[in-house]
């Protein structure tokens, strides 16, 4: 009979892995945009928040900008009075994200071509502020409940099976399992898309070399719209998962900050890196919180990932799977 601490550890690890999948989902959006346009997109987290808010708003038939309209015209509108089924709402939200991608390309990126990376980074922070404000003005700032019919709660089956095998029932949230399944499906789809479709190949060509891609006739602008749309879609998926887990609220946008150490660890340009990094960070921080957290006051999850990534980077400055940084004068 194994001691209980082994089971606890295993349980913490499995839950950490599941959390890691969600971090990886957000990190994936970062990597896609960074690879295709060299932009470090700080707004990725807010994109997830905005997508989740839009989804809830469409589902519940909220009137967009109701608050603003009421303030200006003195009316009292708030809901259309219908509800939209989950799948249709998701499709509509995806359309909104595509529209957003086009707007971002038209209004922001097109004017900032050839600027230094720091300027582009700042522009995405500006975009993050703008979208956060826009989301609140459009749909209201209160905490919303998101439900698209994913299973939730403790998985009875796993609890039972593991109890029969080991004499200890593992606690695993069914939502986490669903999230993992969705994430895997998403990564497989993205990989297939980028390997076998024409657009996907163009995408990889741009990621490889902007100028060479331009010279064989690939439209950079289209590729940017495409990447931002995909990143918006990934953000929507992440927003659904996190939103269903903890409600749609401002803190959702902070998952972007969780994804940054994942990126450092995995390398800014590597999709497998984002996934492996996410898993390592998710597992590492849960284990650290479980074993060391109680000794030093808890809530270590805020910084542990960063410190881990920092220490790691000192030894390998380009991350796990990042391209080797070669510098020439």
């Amino acid at each position, binding site marked *: 009979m194994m001691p209980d601490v082994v089971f606890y550890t295993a349980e913490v690890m499995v839950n950490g892995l599941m959390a890691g999948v969600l971090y990886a989902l957000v990190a994936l959006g970062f990597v896609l945009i960074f690879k295709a346009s060299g932009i470090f997109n700080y707004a990725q987290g807010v994109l997830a928040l905005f997508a989740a808010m839009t989804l809830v708003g469409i589902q519940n038939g909220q009137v967009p900008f109701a608050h603003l309209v009421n303030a200006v015209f003195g009316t009292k509108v708030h809901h259309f009075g219908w509800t939209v089924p989950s799948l249709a709402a998701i499709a509509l939200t995806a359309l909104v994200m595509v529209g957003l991608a086009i707007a971002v390309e038209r209004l922001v990126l097109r004017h900032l071509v050839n600027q230094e990376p720091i300027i582009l980074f700042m522009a995405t922070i500006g975009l*993050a502020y703008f979208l956060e404000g826009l989301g609140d003005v459009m749909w209201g*700032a209160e905490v919303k409940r998101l439900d698209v019919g994913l299973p939730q709660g403790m998985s009875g089956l796993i609890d039972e099976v593991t109890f029969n095998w080991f004499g200890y029932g593992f606690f695993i949230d069914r939502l986490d399992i669903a999230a993992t399944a969705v994430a895997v499906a998403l990564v497989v789809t993205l990989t297939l898309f980028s390997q076998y479709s024409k657009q996907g190949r163009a995408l990889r060509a741009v990621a490889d070399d902007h100028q060479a891609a331009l010279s064989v006739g690939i439209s950079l602008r289209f590729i940017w719209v495409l990447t931002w749309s995909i990143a918006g879609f990934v953000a929507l998926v992440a927003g659904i998962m996190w939103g269903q887990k903890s409600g749609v609220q401002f803190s959702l946008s902070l998952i972007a900050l969780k994804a940054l150490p994942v990126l450092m660890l995995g390398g800014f340009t590597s999709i497998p890196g984002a996934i492996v990094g996410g898993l390592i960070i998710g597992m590492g921080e849960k284990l650290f919180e479980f074993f060391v957290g109680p000794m030093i006051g808890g*809530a270590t999850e805020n910084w542990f990932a960063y410190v881990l990534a920092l220490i790691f980077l000192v030894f390998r400055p380009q991350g796990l799977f990042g391209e080797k940084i070669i510098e020439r004068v």
Partner: protein
Amino acid sequence: MLYREAGDFKTSYRDDAQTFPIAFDRWRYYAVLAVAFGVIPFVINDYWANAILIPFLIYAIAAIGLNILTGYCGQVSLGTGGFMAVGAYATYKLMTAFPDVSILIHILLAGGITAAVGVLFGLPSLRIKGFYLAVATLAAQFFLVWLFNKVPWFYNYSASGQISAPERTFLGIALTGPASPAWAAYLTCLVFCVALAWLARNLTRGPLGRQWMAIRDMDIAAEIIGVNPLRAKLTAFAISSFFVGIAGALFFAVYLGAAEVGESFGIQKSFLVLFMIIIGGLGSIFGSFAGAAFLVLLPVLLKNTLVGGLGWPTDLAAHLELMIVGALIIVFLIAEPHGMAQLWRVAKEKLRLWPFPH
């Protein structure tokens, strides 16, 4: 007409190398100082001091500090909020542990402590570059905020977890605490701000500043021509953190009076100061002031127009403010990526020829 160098002859190298080579500029600078020291303290009231002038001066110090690191030495830092927290908590601990020592000395010491912490977190910059470093400095931000939140020694085991500044006087006038008059708080910040700006200006045009700029422009090339990257980067981190630490100390002791680390020194502060130097202009002392003024004034103006002028609910105004700030940042970056300092430079060039440009 007014703004030109004709007839303004330089007879020594010293004259030629001065900060304001044009006489008009020099007089304008003296006039600004005279107004700031001689007029404003007598007419200041609580609203102007707390809403605009004191935050402007403190943020200007922080922005100069970050500009030294990011604008002059090229190391992007997102840990400004954390370093401000170090300055604030160091002042608090010093104030409560040594109540007899002058508060001004405490603030300077707090800057020194922050410099040491800055060097510590600056060490990875020798290996990590670019965005990886920017994200790495977030480690400082989150770790420091967590530390001040979780270790009760830092906030003297107070039940609320807050720190609040006890009353400390200088020449019989309260500088900190609720009883301190607006003009005293203003003058404290002004003295620090002017002295530090003078220091920064002279550091950045001396040998140290040139080393920083060499590292910023291309670190490998700088190393080859004999700049020691270890020394240059770590001095940049130390001096930058010194400035930021003093800004944090003033922010807590003189401006807020009581602070809670997550709220006052969170990641939002880091971004705010970074915005200031980007909008103001990287690598420019004037730019730090301009950026600080812009981002301190903007929310006040927006709030006054939206809530005061149009009578919209405050939460809606707050959301619209976010949108407007975000949009303005983007517009600014598109219109002038080199910031307000560049606009000012262009304006000066035009002014020199005005009104006969040909």
